[in-house]
Structure formats: C-alpha cells, structure tokens
C-alpha cells in the first residue's frame, strides 16, 4: 500500500514512523488469526497505514473484512486516509469523530480493534493547547460549512488549523485519551474479539494489563523494540466472553 501525503497533509497528519511500522509488523503476523468477515475498527487512523494494510492483507487472503472503519478526530487525516485508500483500491470508511462519539456499535460489536494512541506523556498545558486547537478546528469547519465551502475549498480552509499535536500528546502518563477509549471499547467487543494497543515503557503497562484482566481479557506482548530512548511495545488483548 502506497501512502502519499501532500504538502499540507505532511504537516497536519501523522506521518508513519517507527511506532507505526512496529505495529504494522505485528498486525501482519496476526492477520492469520483474524476471524472471517470481521468488523475492524481503528481509533485514530491517521494516514490509514494500519487499517489500510489490514484490509488489503485480508482481501489478499480471501478474507474480506465486513467493515473496516477508521475514526479520526482530525478532518485532514480523514480526507488523506480516504483518498489513499481509494488510490490503493482498499475497502474502507472513515468517520470524523471524537472517540466513539456518534457511533452506535452495540449491535454489530467489534471483532478487531486497533489503537495507536497519543501515548507521549505531556504537561497539562500541552493537553490544553490540543483541546484549544481541536475546538478552533471544529469552529472553522462549522463556519466554512455554513459559508457553503465544499470539496477542495473546504479541505484547504479546515487545514488552516493543525491538529498534529493531538496525534501524540497523551497528558498524564500518556494515558489521558487511552483510558477513555479503553473504558468504552471493552464494552463493545464481540466474543473472542481482539484489541491491539501500542504502548511505551513510560505508560503504566501493569495497570493497563490489570485493567484488561478485570474486564475478562487475556493479555500478551507481541513486539518490543527500542528506538532512541523510547521502548515501544505492541500489546494484544483477547476477550474471553
């Protein structure tokens, strides 16, 4: 799958990095365990590198996902990932939302959940700054939409506020967003559903594992690597419903 980001997207959308490639390697090895016709959801899909490749690999194995849904808080990322999927003829839908806001996933449930969260521990001020930009972008969108900007004009206008900081800024323990999402997604998983989560050593890994255990999930460490001063891990949690 070819990821092509234009100049603005290169600034505004998370460009696949070491964390993405580690995650992708893990998913490539895992794909053989995915159920037939799975409902696959990725939170914070960015450029779409993870869910796009999953969808493509499933198709190649004659195991098409029933749904591959990417959710991203950043409109620019939704636009970029949708375009990239079309260019690669990959089967995918993207929703611009804040976490699971507006999603009624209770009936279908989720079989595979992929999450590379904003994991970097950051100061409160940085979290506040992200919230401010997020609010500004949403206001800009509403205004541009009300002014009847559509198509490329809307894309360019909305891109004037850059949400890239939201893609990594994780607040306290780097877990501010992660805990909210995990709390919700554990209620949406189907029996034998699998959650894949990226973490770094600075995140409270033992607490995360204990959280999942209490909800009936069995946990595994799939990958571990050191990049500069960051130890990165891919965790897998299987729901024993």
């Amino acid at each position, binding site marked *: 799958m070819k990821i092509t980001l234009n100049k603005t997207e290169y600034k505004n959308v998370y460009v696949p990095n070491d964390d993405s490639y580690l995650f992708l390697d893990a998913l490539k090895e895992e794909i053989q365990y995915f159920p037939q016709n799975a409902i696959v959801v990725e939170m914070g899909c960015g450029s779409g590198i993870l869910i796009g490749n999953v969808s493509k690999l499933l198709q190649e194995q004659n195991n098409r996902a029933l749904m591959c849904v990417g959710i991203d808080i950043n409109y620019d990322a939704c636009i970029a990932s949708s375009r990239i999927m079309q260019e690669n003829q990959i089967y995918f*839908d*993207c929703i611009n939302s804040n976490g699971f806001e507006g*999603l009624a996933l209770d*009936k279908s449930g989720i079989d595979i959940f992929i999450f590379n969260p904003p994991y970097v521990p950051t100061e409160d001020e940085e979290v506040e700054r992200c919230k401010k930009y997020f*609010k500004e972008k949403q206001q800009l969108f*509403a205004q541009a939409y009300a002014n009847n900007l559509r198509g490329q004009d809307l894309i360019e206008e909305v891109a004037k506020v850059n949400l890239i900081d939201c893609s990594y800024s994780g607040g306290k323990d780097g877990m501010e967003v992660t805990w909210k999402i995990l709390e919700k997604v554990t209620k949406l998983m189907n029996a034998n559903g699998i959650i894949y989560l990226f973490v770094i050593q600075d995140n409270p890994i033992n607490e995360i594992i204990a959280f999942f255990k209490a909800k009936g999930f069995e946990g595994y460490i799939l990958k571990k690597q050191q990049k500069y001063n960051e130890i990165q891990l891919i965790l897998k949690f299987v729901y024993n419903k």
Partner: protein
Amino acid sequence: MRLLVHNLLMCNKCDKNNYPLKIEVNKSVIMELEFKKDAILKLIPKLDFEVLSNTVRELGFKQFPKQIPPNVDQDLVFLKDLHRVLFETHIMDGQLTCPNPSCKRNYPITNGIPNMILTEDEQ
C-alpha cells in the same frame, strides 16, 4: 461514507430517539466491489435491517424489501441489491439529521466524510 456506516451512526447529543439519523444525499457515487455472497450473508444479522430498509426506500429505491426475504441465502437478486446499497454506494456530500424533534442536530457529510464531532457546549 456508505450506508453500511449510516447503520452505525447516532446523535450523541441526545440519549433517546437519536437513531437512526435521517439522511439527505446531494451527491453519491458508485464504486464497484466484487460480490461475495458469504460475506453479505454474514453481515445481515449484524445490521439493523429495518433502519437500512427505511433509509434505502426513503432515498428512492422503493422496491427494496421491508423485511429480510425468506430463503435469503438463495435470493441472489436481493443479495446483489444489498451489496450495491451497502458496499458500492458512497455518499460524498449530504447531511445526517437527528430524528429527535427536540434536537434535529445536523451532521454534515463532506468529501465523503461524516463529521460527528459535537461542540463543547453540546456535550
């Protein structure tokens, strides 16, 4: 956005009568995808079929059945229609509206992306 996704969206501003969202389509395109009978049969139980059927008929496909036909696994005509509706029809521009009369919040679909984000004072 495809109708498959419409089946998964609700208004997050209210907690009742918030599903399904009414849908208005200004522009849609068909992108073909290989028909797979097994996949679509597997999907049916995961859908809110009544919601889908109402939506499809409101959008002008009047012959679309209200209920899942009996012997659905042999009804190729129906399955192919369902495939077209769920997998191949992409809504590029339009809007979703909360069905709750006291809310009626609009969620725009632009460039194929539904924007479900609430403002701070709506949360």
